[in-house]
């Protein structure tokens, strides 16, 4: 009956495959463009590979454990030029000061822009200001910082020469100007993270009789934490890698030279060096006295930034266990990292 009419004589399923495109059938111009795109991608991979391999070979061959524990010394002979303990400490200090300023300020600015943003003309002005700072070359920021902080009003942040002229160069000042470099990254990441939080989270909190401030502290910022942390780490990478601000605002010293007798404060008010300025000064382009040590320091610098980048990928990619696994952006083309 009806059952037999419906009885199974199922057709074997045919999956329609889209016809495979053949590039050879394209017009010549398209083919040329296609191959150019392909070649550019491959070239970029090769350059990344070259950077890592070159720094690996050059850096590791000159890297000695002692370099991490010795202060640099002025010497014409490379063997007597010491290590880069001071630059590593300097990098840590500048990064700490810059992050300590940029992180809270950036989160505060982004929270205001995303959760309040009134009046709207002020929000637009703040946004333009952030974009302007993000687009300003760091050397311009550095010169601007020198202009501001070399005034006697800011004398407490650096040291004064015997004639009362304020140098405007110290860890404090470099860190403060570095904060401007990291700020746009923190703001952008925080805003992005806050925008991602669905409106129903806010409504749920308001409906429980919570104020806007409580909602921000207890619901929104904790939810946005991975994004915010990612932005902060990205900003740290930016600070660690910048040379211009260090060269201009940290005095290009070889060693960290404190001022006065107060231990920590004195160091922060004094000249110093970081890994970037150390690489510049010791490379053939600078004074060129210790190029091997410059290579070793550059390798350490590269490794620090790569680790930070991997940290960003890990922090911001939430998602699955697999995507949260450690990934090395510059190395991820390697088959065994897939």
């Amino acid at each position: 009956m009806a059952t037999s009419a419906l009885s199974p004589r199922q057709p074997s399923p045919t999956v329609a495959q889209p016809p495979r495109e053949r590039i050879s059938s394209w017009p010549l111009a398209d083919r040329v463009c296609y191959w150019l795109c392909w070649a550019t991608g491959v070239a970029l991979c090769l350059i990344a590979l070259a950077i890592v391999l070159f720094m690996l070979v050059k850096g590791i061959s000159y890297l000695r454990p002692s370099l991490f524990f010795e202060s640099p010394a002025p010497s014409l002979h490379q063997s007597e030029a010491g290590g880069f303990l001071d630059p590593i400490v300097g990098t840590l200090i500048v990064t700490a000061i810059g992050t300590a300023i940029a992180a809270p300020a950036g989160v505060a600015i982004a929270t205001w822009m995303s959760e309040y943003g009134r009046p709207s003309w002020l929000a637009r002005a703040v946004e333009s200001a952030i974009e302007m700072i993000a687009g300003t070359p760091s050397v311009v920021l550095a010169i601007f910082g020198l202009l501001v902080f070399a005034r006697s009003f800011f004398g407490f942040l650096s040291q004064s020469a015997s004639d009362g002229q304020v140098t405007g160069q110290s860890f404090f000042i470099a860190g403060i100007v570095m904060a401007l470099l990291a700020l746009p990254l923190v703001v952008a990441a925080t805003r992005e993270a806050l925008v991602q939080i669905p409106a129903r989270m806010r409504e749920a909190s308001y409906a429980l009789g919570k104020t806007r401030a409580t909602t921000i502290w207890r619901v929104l910022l904790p939810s946005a934490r991975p994004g915010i942390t990612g932005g902060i780490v990205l900003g740290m990478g930016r600070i660690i890698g910048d040379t211009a601000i260090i060269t201009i605002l940290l005095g290009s010293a070889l060693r960290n030279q404190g001022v006065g007798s107060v231990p920590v404060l004195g160091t922060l008010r004094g000249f110093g060096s970081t890994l970037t300025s150390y690489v510049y000064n010791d490379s053939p382009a600078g004074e060129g006295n210790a190029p091997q040590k410059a290579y070793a320091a550059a390798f350490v610098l590269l490794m620090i930034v790569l680790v930070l980048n991997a940290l960003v990928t890990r922090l911001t990619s939430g998602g699955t266990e697999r995507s949260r696994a450690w990934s090395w952006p510059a190395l991820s083309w390697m088959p065994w990292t897939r």
Partner: protein
Amino acid sequence: MELAGTVVDAMDPLMPPPVRRIALDREPNVAPPRSAPNGGPAIAMGTRLRGPGPTSAEVRERMSIESVWLAYGENWVVRDVSLPVRQGEVLALIGASGSGKTTLLRSLNRLTEITAGAARSGRIALDGIDIHELEVNDLRRRVSMVFQQPNPFPMSIFDNVAYALAEQRAVRAVRRRRRTPELEHAVEDALRRAGLHDEVGGDLGRPALKLSGGQQQRLCIARALAAQPEVLLLDEPCSALDPISTATIEELIVGLRESVAIVIVTHNLQQAFRVADHVAFMHLGELVEYGSSDQVFDRPSQQRTRDYISGAFG
């Protein structure tokens, strides 16, 4: 040739998919439609969850909505609605999309104020006091709300409920995860009232987002109940849930009505029939009909209500 034809057919967006017949090994078992008994509801509604109704002494008016008009910008979305909200019974707001049910509901704890351009006229009173004279966060603690989508915060189950409990000044203590015995007791009590305690009881430190959809919604109800509100607003609380979770939550709603006045917005007529004591039918911002559930579903006085309930529109 044939293969090429297949490819073209498969890629044609106007082509309907091929009919796939399902092989049956026995006759289909379809229940014949029951004819509605005389005077009964126009459609089969299932069974009511309401037990013997509470005595009239237990029912008392908590909120009154008096000639309320609500607008977003230039558009009036609620026109001249007057309704009582009573403790001891469930009030269901039914009506098609865009009838203003949700807006009316959100105005009861002034959540409409979050939306820019929202305006109101008329009076809404909680225990005789105009809600606009109350401090807004105080009002929202007394008139709590559960939303359409389960929206637990991305924290632990315990913290979700504890967050609702924390008075503004005590938030710091909660943030430090200081679990005082009173706090723990209050959280467990709220979870128990929402019927979630037995399911999650042992592990309150679990992230709330790991719960199932139905459990998440009950957590949201627990969160809303934690601050001991006097009125509970439910905005289509089951529309994102499966039938079993829906049944659990409906039983919960019916059980809760003795201790808290409940207003539920629902698209689901059967749900309104199952849980509501009084029903208000809204259409295009107007209150068309308000009456007891029996009266609205069995003997609607308005033609539009009759049409809506029988499925003519909406």
